[in-house]
């Protein structure tokens, strides 16, 4: 019995488990140490969690695009982060116009609605163009080819937007309606964070309903199951793929405005980090799996906002907040090592990849 075990476990496996175990031990040690010092009150933790939820639901919305495109085309749409950036950056000019004309203060709801529409429209346009120009001619090419194309498209789009709109940070106008706090029992919650969470939840629910309930959603699911069989059943593959990109673009555009409202600025490079994080979220939840992407996004957001203080503070690390991106990436690598299927996914990383 032991012999068979010894045979099955290779050196690299053992090393990987060792690394994983060490990281887990560090996390546990750090957390207990932090909690033992009692430096953070429950108010702190509540704030961290709400912020994490808000950030996580934005990641989840972006991750939808990654996961659906991956599900249907088996490729990482690396340029999705630019789809996410293009919408809110364009909508910024609309928002700035509303702000300077005073319309934003008079009719904040109408304005926000228009800003969302513009952002979603632009993001969708970018996503559709991307599919048409860069990805469609490459269907059936070796796997590395579309990925490299996507990387190229990502940089092309970033610097196109930089050329169009300039390289500076643009401050998103403040919506007065969303300023301030709401009390919940003894805690308080920032209004815009609550709005971000609710809006993202509504959008995700709508998208999920679309994919599960409508005819087109069924087509999307069947194409991602088996493209050939789906086309034999009379499903228009091209149309289905374009619809997937449209949905991804819309959710990315909406996520972009939420992100801009939360961090109050837009920039041509703003898509890069959230893009990778959202991809991480998609992998966390199991890529190709829509509820998984939502779960993964929220989980990642929480880990990122709670993690630095919880895990690292107790270890005596200076300025742990600087390392929050590192935590996210380490989480990604850990998931890829120990559970490449993700939290809810099927085993894709080895089989179909």
């Amino acid at each position, binding site marked *: 019995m032991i012999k068979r075990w010894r045979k099955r476990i290779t050196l690299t496996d053992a090393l990987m488990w060792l690394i994983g175990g060490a990281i887990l031990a560090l996390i546990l040690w750090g957390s207990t140490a932090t909690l033992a010092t009692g430096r953070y009150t429950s108010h702190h933790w509540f704030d961290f969690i709400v912020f994490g939820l808000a950030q996580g639901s934005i990641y989840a919305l972006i991750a939808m695009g990654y996961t659906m495109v991956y599900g249907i085309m088996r*490729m990482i749409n690396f340029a999705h982060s630019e789809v996410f950036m293009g919408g809110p950056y364009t909508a910024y000019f609309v928002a700035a116009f509303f702000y300077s004309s005073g319309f934003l203060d008079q009719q904040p709801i109408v304005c926000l609605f228009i800003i969302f529409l513009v952002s979603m429209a632009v993001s969708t346009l970018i996503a559709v163009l991307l599919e048409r120009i860069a990805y469609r001619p490459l269907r059936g090419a070796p796997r590395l080819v579309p990925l490299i194309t996507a990387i190229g498209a990502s940089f*092309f789009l970033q610097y196109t937007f930089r050329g169009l709109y300039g390289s500076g940070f643009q401050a998103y106008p403040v919506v007065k309606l969303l300023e301030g706090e709401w009390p919940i029992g003894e805690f308080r919650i920032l209004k815009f964070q609550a709005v971000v969470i609710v809006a993202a939840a509504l959008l995700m629910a709508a998208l999920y309903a679309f994919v599960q309930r409508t005819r087109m959603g069924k087509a999307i699911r069947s194409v991602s199951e088996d493209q050939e069989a789906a086309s034999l059943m009379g499903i228009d593959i091209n149309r289905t793929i374009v619809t997937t990109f449209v949905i991804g673009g819309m959710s990315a555009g909406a996520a972009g405005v939420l992100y801009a409202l939360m961090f109050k600025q837009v920039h041509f490079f703003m898509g*890069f980090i959230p893009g990778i994080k959202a991809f991480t979220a998609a992998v966390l939840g199991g890529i190709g799996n829509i509820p998984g992407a939502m779960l993964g996004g929220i989980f990642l957001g929480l880990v990122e906002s709670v993690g630095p203080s919880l895990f690292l503070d107790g270890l005596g690390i200076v300025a742990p907040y*600087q390392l929050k991106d590192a935590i996210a990436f380490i989480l*990604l*690598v850990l998931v890829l090592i120990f559970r490449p299927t993700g939290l809810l996914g099927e085993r894709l990383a080895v089989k179909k990849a």
Partner: protein
Amino acid sequence: MNGPQGIKIGLIGGGVAILMALIGMVEAFSQRHIISNVVSMGHTLLLLVALFSGFLAAKRTTPSKPIRLLANSLISGLMVGGLLALLVILGNWVRLRAVFINASPVLYKLLTFDQGVGAGNLLLLGGGALTGALAGLFYLTPSLLRRVLIVSLGSIVGAGVLQDLLRPTFALWGPLAIINEWLFAVNGLTIQGAISLFILTASGAYFWAERGRKIQTGFRRLTPAKQRAVRLTGLLFSIFLLLTLPQILGLFLSEVLTIVGLYVLLGLGLNIVVGYAGLLDLGYVAFFAIGAYTVAVLTSPELGFFGLSFWAALPLAIAMGVLSGILLGIPVLKMRGDYLAIATLGFGEIIRILVLSDFLRPWLGGAQGVGKIPKASFGSMELATPQQIYYLILAGCFLAGFISWRLRESRLGRAWMAVREDEDVAQAMGINLVATKLLAFATGAAFSALSGAIFASKLGSVYPHSFNVMISINILCLIIVGGMGSIWGVLVGAIALVGLPELLREFAEYRLLVYGAALMAMMLLRPEGLWPEAVRRRELHEE
């Protein structure tokens, strides 16, 4: 469907032209003149767009109907000019600049050739139509004439674009300085220079087209010993050229050369990982950083840990590179394709974030970086100027090139290629995947660390910001443009993607934009790269 074809292509071309104008490329490039006070680079850009759409429109039409073909290409050229004219009209009507920062009056002036809106727009329309028709005519000309025209016009544009490279080089050599005066004005070629260059290159191209084949067959008819002798002379001559290059080119261009050299080194390393073994590594910059920081920590008196000399630190830096290549390789052994790319991207970012953090500041210097890194020295001679460091880099490149060349044909190299083509089959054939992949990561990391070490000593300081993900993307770009798996391709890619942008200052801002476009275009049109490996060329273009 012939008519709409021209309109469609023209509309796409016009869209591209408008995009180029709005992202500021036209304006930025207009500062450099191809022919002094006649044609600027910005105008050339637009001209090329119109030519290209005219040519494409012609190509899509049946050549048996020349009139229709010409009409088609004329229409598409007209559409390009027309869309630009629309942009000018719109720009004079609405203040586009509130959104598009580059839609400035200068741009409109450039687009209308400084003739005002009315006359300028007519010029745009006429010019567009004419260019389109010319492209159509060009399509109809016999192929010999076409080749001659491409070569000669291309070399005029090339000479104009590379004037900063040619002028100082000529100026260094007494007798050649006369060429400078004949060829170049203050900015761009002179008219007589352009004409003489045209005649020269056109006759050269004609001669080569007529006689070239004869020379080639003549060479083939020589005895093998003589062929080898000719090749050897060529090789010796190029080695001699490489050794004297910094003296020929002068200080500024030597600096460019050293940068290209560092990228060649990096590219050769990534070429082993991506090109040979097919492991897409997007965090390759991590090893560059590890090499540079190892040298910095070991040598810099600022941190005051060891104070070794560069030569003592260099092997340790490479060893650190190998070690980290293996350590970072182990977790990703089982991943493939996309997952591997993202995981390695994550690694690259983790390293950068760690180096940047306050947490590791006492050891790695944090955001301020590490300074006062000593230069490499031989006895009392210090390798300080770019012209001297060039030799260090050249030696590194030769070493790396030699290793990659020998490895490619070795058992290990064939194992890498087998893994690249199909992992499962490779494993079934008895290839040890773990060892093969780790060796690829380790070798690639070693080259990268070597490059990083030289980089640290060249700059004298290292900052975390020098090691961002853009470097990884740059290197990936250059090996893809050059041709994956090809050693010469790395060189071609590095010269095209690193050398050229250094020479074109106004280009710097659009560097990554062009990289992105180049990556896409390469993948869509020529996935094997500019200088592909012979095997890969055969694979992708089966007879």
